[in-house]
């Protein structure tokens, strides 16, 4: 067994405008090669800040203390090459005036030293891998011509185009409807398994995290309050806050909140 892919050591992040409040505070966390790790939390938990910090995408105004080691070294991972990032809003992350094939090919051209013909063939292959119908046509389509789910598939294709070792998905399915969300989660699961990528899956949805992840880290107000195997966190949570999150989850087996209305309907 090799060492961790990412080692986060005593990481604290503050945004300078308010240096007394921490977005992240003293985080220690490893991401193993090939593992699926979910980061869950509510607004202000710091979960997205952690994802951005790992990817080196924090704004210059953020003050960062501690270390993020990539494969045991202090060198920064190369964004797009070592780490692929999928955001919530694919229409914001894709160039609206670039054909999606070109957008994907650009990643391969930039990071894999491929000429444009090779990169375009790679883009076509990736569109097939993310299961877009009629990839030959989609290659020349623009983001606005695709549905939200299709755009997210394109964003995933671009994120994995250079064969990264870590895929970060930050609320990547939150804006999608339930059926499309399930399809995208299944796709991400398949892709990380086939390519041996590690997955950092950031979500507010504890049930979604439970379905996808090997391990779950629970964040609250910038602190990691619980970390464990997904089964253990779900079935035997240790921290009161994790229990609160689980109690607040309204699944298909939840007790009805209402009393029945006393009259019939056709």
């Amino acid at each position, binding site marked *: 067994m090799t060492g961790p892919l990412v080692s986060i050591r005593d990481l604290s992040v503050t945004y300078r405008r308010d240096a007394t409040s921490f977005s992240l505070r003293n985080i220690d966390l490893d991401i193993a090669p090939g593992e699926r790790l979910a980061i869950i939390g*509510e*607004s202000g938990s710091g979960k997205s800040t952690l994802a951005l910090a790992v990817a080196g995408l924090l704004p210059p105004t953020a003050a960062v203390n501690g270390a993020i080691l990539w494969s045991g070294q202090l060198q920064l991972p190369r964004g797009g090459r070592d780490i692929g990032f999928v955001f919530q809003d694919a229409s914001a992350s894709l160039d609206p005036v670039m054909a999606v094939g070109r957008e994907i090919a650009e990643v391969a051209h930039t990071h894999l030293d491929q000429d444009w013909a090779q990169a375009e063939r790679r883009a076509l292959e990736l569109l097939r891998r993310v299961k877009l119908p009629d990839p030959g046509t989609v290659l020349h389509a623009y983001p606005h011509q695709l*549905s*939200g789910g299709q755009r997210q598939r394109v964003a995933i294709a671009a994120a994995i185009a250079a064969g990264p070792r870590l895929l970060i998905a930050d609320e990547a399915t939150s804006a*999608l*409807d*339930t*059926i*499309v*969300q*399930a399809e995208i989660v299944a796709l991400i699961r398949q892709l990380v*398994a086939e390519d041996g990528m590690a997955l950092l899956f950031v979500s*507010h*949805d*504890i*049930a*979604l995290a*439970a*379905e996808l992840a*090997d391990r779950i880290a629970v964040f609250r107000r910038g602190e990691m309050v619980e970390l464990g*195997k*997904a*089964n253990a966190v*779900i*079935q035997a949570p240790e921290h009161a806050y994790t229990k*609160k*999150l*689980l109690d*607040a*989850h*309204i*699944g*298909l*087996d*939840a*007790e*009805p*909140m*209402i009393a*029945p*209305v*006393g*009259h*019939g*309907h056709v």
Partner: protein
Amino acid sequence: MAMSEPLLAVSGLTKRFHRSGTIVTAAEDISLSISPAETLALAGPSGSGKSTIARLILRLIEPDAGRVDFGGENFLALRGSALRARRARLQMVFQDPLAALNPRATVARVLDDPLRIHALVSRSERPSRIAALLQRVGLSSDLADRYLHEISGGQRQRVAIARAIATKPSLIVLDEAVSALDVSVRSQILELLLDLQRTERIAYLFVSHDLGVVRAFAHRVVLLEGGRITEQGDARAVIDNPQSAIGKALVAAVPRLTTTIQERS
């Protein structure tokens, strides 16, 4: 038991949009009804027409065909002051209160608007009415002078609910009104809505993509696909045993806490 008169009765509601040469059917022959103090959910995938139907009922968009009876009146035929008076009884709460309400207004101003526009209480009584509304939705009256961007998302949605109930409505359209809230806040907002339903006999048209919440919160559900109703009935009966293909697909796609999959490929 006698059937109560429906508060809202919709029949044959149809709306088509023309987009770049093609016709998109957003609502096709929609018929549904809501009784007083009842919650009817509209659920379905993106593009199924659930928000369009809610907006048609609110008359934020006008239908191509169909009839909406609200409180025993032909709601679509109302104009002018009659429409304004009726509209006070039909309110709405959307997903994003910062987009739905004036972000440059204080909480007091947001609540004062409906009281003033509908002339519900005299000018001198309005401050105490605002304080009472804030109290009713579980907010401190200290918040009255704050701006919407200064308070939390959950507090903002409480303000949106306070505004909705200011005109003593009999029906509130809740369009994904709890979808963007943190889960711990969401439960509190749902409890508040249920309490208002019990005490004020408010009916809800609850537009939601979340079948778990629909099953727990709504009495009945209408499942939609492509602007058409695919099935409807008791919320728990439909969701526990869906009959339509889209109903089965929607239920199957809900993430489940109990079926944690731990295989590693």
